[in-house]
């Protein structure tokens, strides 16, 4: 090494300084990193503990109510002689299926197409829409209930009905789907688009034949996540769907829904048993949400695997 023969080579000096400083501070840095790791662990444990607690409460209080009768009967009123006669939640299950199903039908196509536009077009108009969407995502859901009540239930005389609830939920879902599908579409590498355009395809055809199929897992996840959010929404349904105790498949009639049913059971002044049965409904609702989330992950994983 010719360099080392020079007297006091600044480079070798600096090398010695860096290595000795690194070694000296190593114990401290290792300690800091262990402490920080501990802090991360504690925060994580905190989140998990709350979730586990909720699930424990749900299962320990709810599982006793789950039975074929509970799922297939309408609610009934407990009496002094039959305090456990709380009936079932068929009305809420049917209502939720109809209301959420219609909300999906309305929100998913609109949300995905609008999300595609957000991702593919870039001008002042689209930017304005994007900002509006972001504001809408933060809108308190109870406001949507007020809005749909004013417009549909009162002004257009639709009355309390499942469809009014569907409209409110769809308005809630659309910005979520838009945002998530924009992200999914943007994550498609632009080299794929350029390859398509270079084959002489129009921009629209590239979107339809290349971008959308590539982004499908993301779009599916967007739809399912928005759905799982809507299934649990209570506030916008409170004064829209009528909250009946009887089962109706007709979205233009009064209906009930799972979260509304929980609300009603908890607030009832009739019997503590009925109040307790809300845990059963909550367990059903959480299970549905869990499966929706699981489904969206599976769907994404499946289409990912298929592609390889």
């Amino acid at each position, binding site marked *: *090494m*010719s*360099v080392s023969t020079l007297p006091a080579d*600044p*480079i*070798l000096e*600096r*090398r010695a*300084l*860096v*290595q000795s*400083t*690194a*070694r*000296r*501070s*190593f114990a401290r*840095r*290792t300690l800091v990193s262990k402490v920080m790791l501990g802090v991360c662990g504690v925060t994580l444990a905190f989140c998990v503990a709350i979730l586990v607690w909720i699930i424990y409460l749900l299962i320990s209080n709810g599982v006793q109510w789950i039975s074929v009768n509970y799922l297939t009967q309408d609610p009934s009123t407990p009496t002094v002689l039959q305090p456990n006669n709380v009936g079932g939640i068929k009305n809420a299950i049917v209502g939720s299926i109809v209301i959420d199903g219609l909300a999906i039908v309305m929100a998913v196509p609109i949300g995905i197409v609008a999300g595609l536009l957000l991702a593919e077009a870039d001008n002042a108009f689209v930017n304005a829409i994007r900002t509006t969407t972001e504001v809408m995502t933060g809108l308190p859901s109870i406001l949507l209930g007020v809005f749909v009540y004013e417009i549909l239930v009162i002004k257009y005389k639709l009355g309390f009905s499942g469809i009014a609830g569907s409209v409110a939920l769809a308005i809630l879902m659309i910005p979520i789907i838009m945002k998530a599908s924009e992200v999914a579409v943007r994550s498609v590498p632009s080299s794929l688009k350029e390859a398509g355009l270079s084959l002489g395809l129009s921009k629209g055809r590239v979107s339809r034949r290349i971008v959308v199929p590539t982004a499908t897992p993301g779009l599916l996840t967007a739809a399912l996540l928005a759905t799982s959010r809507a299934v649990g929404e209570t506030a916008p349904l409170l004064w829209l769907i009528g909250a009946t105790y009887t089962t109706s498949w007709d979205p233009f009639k009064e209906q009930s829904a799972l979260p509304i049913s929980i609300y009603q059971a908890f607030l009832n002044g009739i019997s503590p048993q009925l109040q307790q049965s809300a845990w059963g409904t909550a367990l059903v609702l959480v299970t549905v949400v869990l499966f929706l989330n699981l489904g969206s992950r599976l769907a994404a994983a499946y289409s990912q695997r298929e592609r390889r």
Partner: protein
Amino acid sequence: MDSAITVPAPDGVLTDEPIEDPRSGPIAMHLRDVSVSFNNRLAVRDVTFEVPDNKVTALIGPSGSGKTTLLRALNRLHDLTKGAKVQGEILLGDTDLYGKGMHPTLIRTRVGMVFQRPNPFPTMSIYDNVVSGLRFNGIHKKNVLNEAAESALIGAALWDRVKDRLKAHASTLSGGEQQRLCIARALAVEPEVLLMDEPTSALDPISTQRIEELMSELKNRVTVIIVTHNMQQAARVSDLCVFLLMGQDGAGEQIEVAPTRKLFTEPDDPRTLDYIHGRFG
């Protein structure tokens, strides 16, 4: 290809001077039976060679021959990959890099790395990028940092270009300049060995030429190990060449290790001859 057609040897390798083995001088690193596997699938098998001190050693070979995989074993970057396992012995001086109690963070102050694509820290200025390694290692004295920054930027042939705008963002530099900034960033902690993973593959020819010219200066300061796809580059910049090839089972194997001029003019292995004459790869 018809064997009658002679392919001209790369520039600078045809001289009558006797070939000197760079390994006759001091040795910076010893590799002994180094194997790298991912989830029990072998990617590099039983590589053994010596890295001469203050010289440029080039790892060459076609895609899949394990050049980059081997390089990343030399500063323990595989520690970050789940399922990766490095076997054998890698000595830096007399330190066993994978020895008991050796911590990768300390090793990496001694073995630096420059990557394929320039990756300056985007939120930092040119100056902050260069001294980041020193700061992260606990050196905060202004005059030490200033001296190190100037020395490293001069070492990376970037000083004249940036001395008047050290506070500017790294992203204001061109691709080639960004790569030289990354070289300066690696140099500032004064590592003993600098690993370069195809450092010019994302650069234009002029920037590539600048960095190649830099290499002969760099080796006065640091031992360089460079992975390159480009045989001409290996011939131009390196003193020692390690030729790797993918074996039957997909694992990279060492075919030949020789002083660069020997490897490019009279290789011992016919496969080396085929490769440097462009008959495959």
